[in-house]
């Protein structure tokens, strides 16, 4: 970075050649070197090696899924191109778009991301800042999977029509660029919206409205839900009626989607296959405009960050009344104090509330899938309740398995104060456990509302599984919180450090706990004594509670053994 000292202001930065000039290139090289050094230095610790291993496993798993998706899309596109059924090609691109955009949102909290604000002190041009924002994290799961899907489509179409190679390549490259920019823009704006109260409330309202709208759409697009069994003819007649009723709406959707990126991408290929190169170029330009537009939307956000925008709540506070604050929990002692602190911190962290609440909402939304029994002449899926309850608890993975992550420098206070760390961890466990049960209750109610009340045996089994899963999760969560902690900024969704190792292990444990429950139920069902599953799971719960108390008893020793690493990791000082 020796060239940098001559540069004093933004004018000189521009004079130095913009985002592709010698200065920018020197900066990119310095950043790459810095990241490489950080990677190598990270490997000096066991945690670093574990993280690398976890990254490798994650990459492998998603690559396999991506290859599967790519193969499926490849065969489909070959078939569509071969038979000239271009009108169905947009469906493939909508699938790719969905995969590309959903993965970053669902995995944002587990990804180890680079915070760009640290770069602002350097003489960096906005162009370079933008380029670096796009480059860092480019090789993430969504891009890899999206790229594999696109590769599959490319191979499929080109195998059917060799002459379409340049068109397919160009269209897919533009579509990929659009997706990358869109994913980044969504995350950047979500971070912005969730950081301030007013916008947070608007986003929450829109979010809820979206899910409620989905529910209102449900009756229109699904078959009659009457519990009466219908004969084949009556069902076919109903289906026909529905298709006729929905036909105008579907035609409108079809006409509209032609103007959207997946439709446009498919349009390029269709026009190219019909030997209309001028039209194809025009449509390709339209796709380019979409990419540019979304790049501009991302640019607006990044420009604000580049100017040193503060995403804090400060400006809103002056308008608020200065009413006296009360204690939320009146109980004496550090346990009540810690629970109150956790409660306040949680209520001020919209990303955390979303993480906890979204699985429950999803239970409400997708619960209807379990109701497809009657139309097929079968009763509803009987295990809907335990599945929904278990799924509703996924949102807790992060806070239970990294329960010190949001402490920041406050971890020093925990070690300095005369309160045993056991009391702090117990308070966190009680708080998270209560929330866990509350969410399980909500998930259960949602599932019952959507699918119907299950048999008392199944209800007992679900409760017994919770008695087993809750303390088991807390016990393992406490151990992992002390041994694999990572710092979390509760106010942000993206661009903060994560731990692939912690994420992978916690998911593994969750799967194991679900597996134990499933295996017990399966064995008892096989023995025709399903009722036996509940007492067995309660017995497992007894063991889990014993394990949890043992862990709690050893928390102080474990924390003190890991004190240096915990403070260094969470407080990031010295």
């Amino acid at each position, binding site marked *: 970075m020796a060239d940098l000292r001559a540069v004093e202001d933004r004018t000189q930065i521009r004079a130095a050649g913009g985002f592709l000039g010698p200065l920018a290139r020197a900066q990119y090289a310095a950043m790459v070197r810095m990241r490489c050094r950080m990677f190598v230095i990270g490997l000096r610790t066991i945690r670093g090696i574990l993280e690398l291993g976890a990254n490798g496993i994650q990459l492998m798993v998603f690559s396999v899924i991506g290859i599967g998706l790519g193969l499926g899309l490849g065969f489909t596109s070959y078939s569509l191109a071969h038979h000239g059924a271009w009108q169905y090609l947009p469906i493939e691109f909508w699938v790719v778009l969905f995969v590309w955009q959903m993965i970053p949102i669902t995995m944002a909290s587990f990804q180890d991301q680079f915070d760009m604000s640290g770069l602002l002190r350097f003489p960096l041009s906005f162009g370079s800042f933008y380029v670096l924002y796009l480059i860092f994290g480019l090789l993430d799961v969504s891009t890899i999977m999206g790229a594999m899907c696109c590769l599959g489509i490319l191979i499929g179409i080109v195998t059917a029509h060799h002459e379409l190679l340049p068109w397919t390549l160009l269209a897919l490259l533009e579509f990929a660029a659009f997706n990358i920019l869109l994913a980044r823009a969504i995350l950047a704006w979500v971070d912005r919206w969730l950081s301030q109260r007013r916008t947070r409330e608007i986003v929450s309202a829109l979010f809820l409205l979206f899910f409620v709208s989905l529910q209102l759409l449900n009756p229109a697009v699904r078959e009659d839900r009457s519990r009466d069994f219908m004969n084949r003819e009556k069902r076919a007649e109903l289906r026909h009626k529905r298709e006729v009723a929905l036909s105008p709406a579907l035609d409108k959707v079809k006409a509209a989607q032609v103007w959207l990126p997946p439709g446009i991408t498919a349009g390029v290929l269709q026009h190219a296959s019909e030997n209309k190169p001028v039209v194809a170029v025009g449509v390709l330009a339209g796709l380019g405009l979409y990419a540019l537009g979304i790049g501009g939307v991302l640019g607006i956000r990044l420009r604000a960050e580049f100017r040193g925008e*503060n995403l*804090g*709540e*400060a400006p809103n*506070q002056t308008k*608020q009344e*200065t009413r006296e*604050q009360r*204690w939320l929990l*009146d109980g*004496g*002692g*550090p346990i*009540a*104090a*810690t629970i*109150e*602190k956790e409660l*306040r*911190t949680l209520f*001020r*962290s919209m990303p955390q509330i979303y993480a906890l609440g979204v699985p429950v909402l999803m239970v409400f939304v997708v619960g209807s899938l379990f109701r497809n029994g009657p139309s097929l002449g079968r009763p509803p899926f009987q295990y809907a309740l335990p599945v929904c309850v278990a799924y509703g608890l996924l949102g807790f993975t992060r806070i239970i398995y990294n329960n010190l992550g*949001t*402490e*920041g*420098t*406050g*971890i*020093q*206070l925990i*070690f*300095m*104060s*005369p*309160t*045993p760390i056991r009391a702090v961890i117990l308070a966190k466990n009680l708080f998270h456990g209560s929330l866990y049960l509350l969410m399980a209750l909500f998930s259960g109610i949602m599932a019952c509302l959507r699918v119907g009340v299950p048999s008392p045996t199944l209800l007992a089994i679900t409760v017994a599984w919770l008695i087993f899963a809750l303390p088991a999760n807390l016990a393992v969560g406490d151990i992992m919180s002390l041994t694999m902690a990572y710092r979390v900024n*509760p*106010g942000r969704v993206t661009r903060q450090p994560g731990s692939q190792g912690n994420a992978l292990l916690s998911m593994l444990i969750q799967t194991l706990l679900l597996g134990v429950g499933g295996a017990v139920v399966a064995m008892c069902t096989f023995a025709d004594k399903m009722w036996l599953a509940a007492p067995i799971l309660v017995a497992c719960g007894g063991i889990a509670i014993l394990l949890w108390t043992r862990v709690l008893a050893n928390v*102080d020793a474990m924390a*003190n053994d890991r*004190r*240096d690493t915990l*403070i260094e990791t969470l*407080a*990031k*000082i*010295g």
Partner: protein
Amino acid sequence: MESMAIQTHGLTRRFGALTAVEDVTLSVSSGQFFGFLGPNGAGKSTTIKMLTGLLEPSGGTVEILGQPFTAGALELKRQIGVVPEGMALLGRLTAPEYLRFVGRMYGLDRDTVNQRTEELLEFMKLAGERRKLVTDFSHGMQKKLALAGAVIHGPKVLFLDEPFEGVDAVAAGMLKAMLQGMIQRGATIFLTTHVLEIVERLCSHVAIIHQGRLVANGSIEDLRAGVASSLPGTEGSRKLTLEEIFLSIVGASNLEPAQELSWLT
């Protein structure tokens, strides 16, 4: 016999092959305002972390108020207050919430916590910012809040790591008065700072650490006399400042012009 507030024997901390603090033995009497000085990277913060239970020593012992200090010495922790390097703040709480949380963690009852919180917020001039999250505070305000949190339980021994960094002159004057008041009431203060004028004005005793080793320890007058006797021409001519004493002891008093960065404008 003079009672000791802080005593260390052969305190050592190693980070792999690096020895950050080596064989530090010092004593701080009760009621003393003690300055702990050293250049950057000398081992000041590492020492203070070991003295407050934030870092485990690789060797040696620490005694606070005559009792061995370990991470599990909870009753002893009740007697000490700390403003560590990272300030130990909780960014998502407001200042009153943070102080109440700290007070409860130190076992104070509700009324005492509420009363002291209000007094400290008024004293630190933070009462007008009671709805603002700590994360949105300026660095100086965070320092003041960290200091308020360190004293809310009325500690007998107070450890301060760079408490005046980023604090404005008015607030610094106020804080100094508060700390002097604590000393008068019998508290012991262990202070690290790079602002030598503050140490010279406040502290009665000073220790200097350099490259992990204690190179000087005693009253400022003793150090002054020792340095004066070793520097030709200074004896009896004028009173050496603490800065001159410090630079002389750490061997940085004779920077040659050649060492300057000539390319700087």
